[in-house]
């Protein structure tokens, strides 16, 4: 791996925030870190961005000015207009001349914010704010782009625009890591790291994770939870038998990526 975290541990007082976490992030690739609130996603990104010193392990990152980082709750100045946000960011990275105008124009076009240059950042819709924040982080063409939950709470239309923006940065060569709580977003990644309670519950390509579920999976309907290793999928249950034997009446089904992620999270929880 070129950039990323290697066997990183972070403690906060007595609480272990991350333990033995490896997150590979490579040029032209998107690594998605998926997990719930409190799993350690933001802590991973803070360590990668150099904002938090790990207690163990190593963070591999380029020089600070070659990183673009968008935290979960900000990434733009609410009291500045879209144009002022762009100007301020360009000044901060000492961009000038043709390159500056070219990149700023490109970002306005790609984010669809060209018509909103005079609007205050804080008055944009949630989706537009996230697009602007990601756009600002891309202004200086970073080698490593770090995005903390850019799509949480964003509607699917703006989410598609954001992923287009991120995909374009990846094909232009940036190494990108994105955190999300949406499993279907993880399926887009070249590399997925599933975090549960500060530990890696699964990691690899979506195909690797899909094929890493031991045993068999089945489906059955009914009101009662069929086995402890069961979860809801619509009106049916998924029943997971890691040892390979499903209870009577349970129809085997091939797991999909979402099943694989839930199974890995469950296995990680049982192992704790």
């Amino acid at each position, binding site marked *: 791996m070129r950039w990323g975290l290697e066997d990183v541990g972070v403690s906060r007082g007595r609480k272990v925030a991350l333990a033995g976490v490896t997150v590979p992030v490579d040029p032209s690739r998107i690594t998605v870190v998926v997990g719930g*609130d409190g799993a350690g996603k933001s802590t991973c990104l803070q360590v990668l961005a150099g904002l938090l010193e790990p207690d163990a392990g190593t963070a591999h990152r380029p020089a600070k000015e070659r990183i673009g980082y968008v935290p979960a709750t900000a990434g733009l100045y609410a009291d500045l207009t879209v144009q002022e946000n762009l100007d301020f960011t360009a000044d901060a990275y000492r961009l000038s001349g043709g390159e500056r105008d070219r990149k700023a124009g490109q970002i306005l076009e790609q984010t669809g914010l060209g018509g909103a240059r005079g609007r205050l950042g804080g008055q944009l819709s949630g989706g537009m704010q996230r697009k602007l924040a990601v756009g600002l982080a891309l202004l200086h063409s970073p080698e490593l782009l770090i995005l903390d939950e850019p799509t949480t709470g964003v509607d*699917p239309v703006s989410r598609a625009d954001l992923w287009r923006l991120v995909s374009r940065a990846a094909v232009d060569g940036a190494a990108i890591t994105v955190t999300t709580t949406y499993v279907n977003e993880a399926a887009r990644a070249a590399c997925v790291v599933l975090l549960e309670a500060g530990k890696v519950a699964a990691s690899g390509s979506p195909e690797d994770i899909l094929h890493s579920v031991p045993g068999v999976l089945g489906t059955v309907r009914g009101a009662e939870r069929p086995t402890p290793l069961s979860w809801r999928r619509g009106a049916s249950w998924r029943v997971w038998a890691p040892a390979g034997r499903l209870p009577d009446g349970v129809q085997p089904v091939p797991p999909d990526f979402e099943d694989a992620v839930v199974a890995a999270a469950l296995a990680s929880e049982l192992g704790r």
Partner: protein
Amino acid sequence: MDTLAEASKATRSFGAFTAVSAADLAVGRGEVAGLLGANGAGKTTLIRLLLGLLRPTGGTVRLFGSPPSIATRRRVGYVPQTLGLYTGLTVAENWSFTAAAFGTTGAPVPDSISAWKNELVAGLPLGAQRQVAFAVALSHRPELLVLDEPTSGVGPLGSARLWEEIRQAVSLGAGVLVTTHNMEEAEQCDRLVVMAAGKVVAAGTTAGIIGDRKAAEIHCDDTGRAFAVLDANGFAVQMQGKALRIAGTATAAAGLLSRAGIDATIETVPANLEEAFVAIARNPEAA
């Protein structure tokens, strides 16, 4: 079907702006209906109409067969995206406050949340707060449960557990209306209703909404160039692992790529719900 909540040609205008326009929506006992729409599509206004928090300026809204009122409100459980808990009170205090408001005092704090009984809600992780909000909303055994983005911010395992509780309420006879931006969550629903620009533009099962929409998966060595060519020609290209994915059939993309001299394998596959939704939201007239 035993209809719990029903909007017929429901319309709500605010001055010259029509937030909801002639919308039809029904939620029956024993089912989970999902309400999808981009921001500003009118979902929240429609829910406020159904709950009686707003009056329609046209059409009708009925809750348990009558116009929404304080009496019908007793039979509804509502979990807003902001959860609606008192964060300065403990879990047990939230429980007893809600019980008192609904006149159902006396029931003990349920097992699912009793571990945090004496903790302040503000100090709990988001996943735990969501479980508490659910338990509280279900405490008066509502017949209709309205959930706004129920698993937002919750991980895969936490979501699976919350859905177990939703389905538990359904198997006891409740009807559920869920709004969500999360397409995995939408697929958990029995039936979906899609809104755009204040109107209901599609309704049916996940498979029905997707219909025969297609997507194309593109595998090639020079992903970067292929992306640039498709992107420049207006395709909303997405990375899909090491491949690319676009809405629509393989034909258009194949022509563009071959003219650009890019050797690619293109496979037409069924669209997923997210792709279908984005297509509908971008062009609601065609839906």
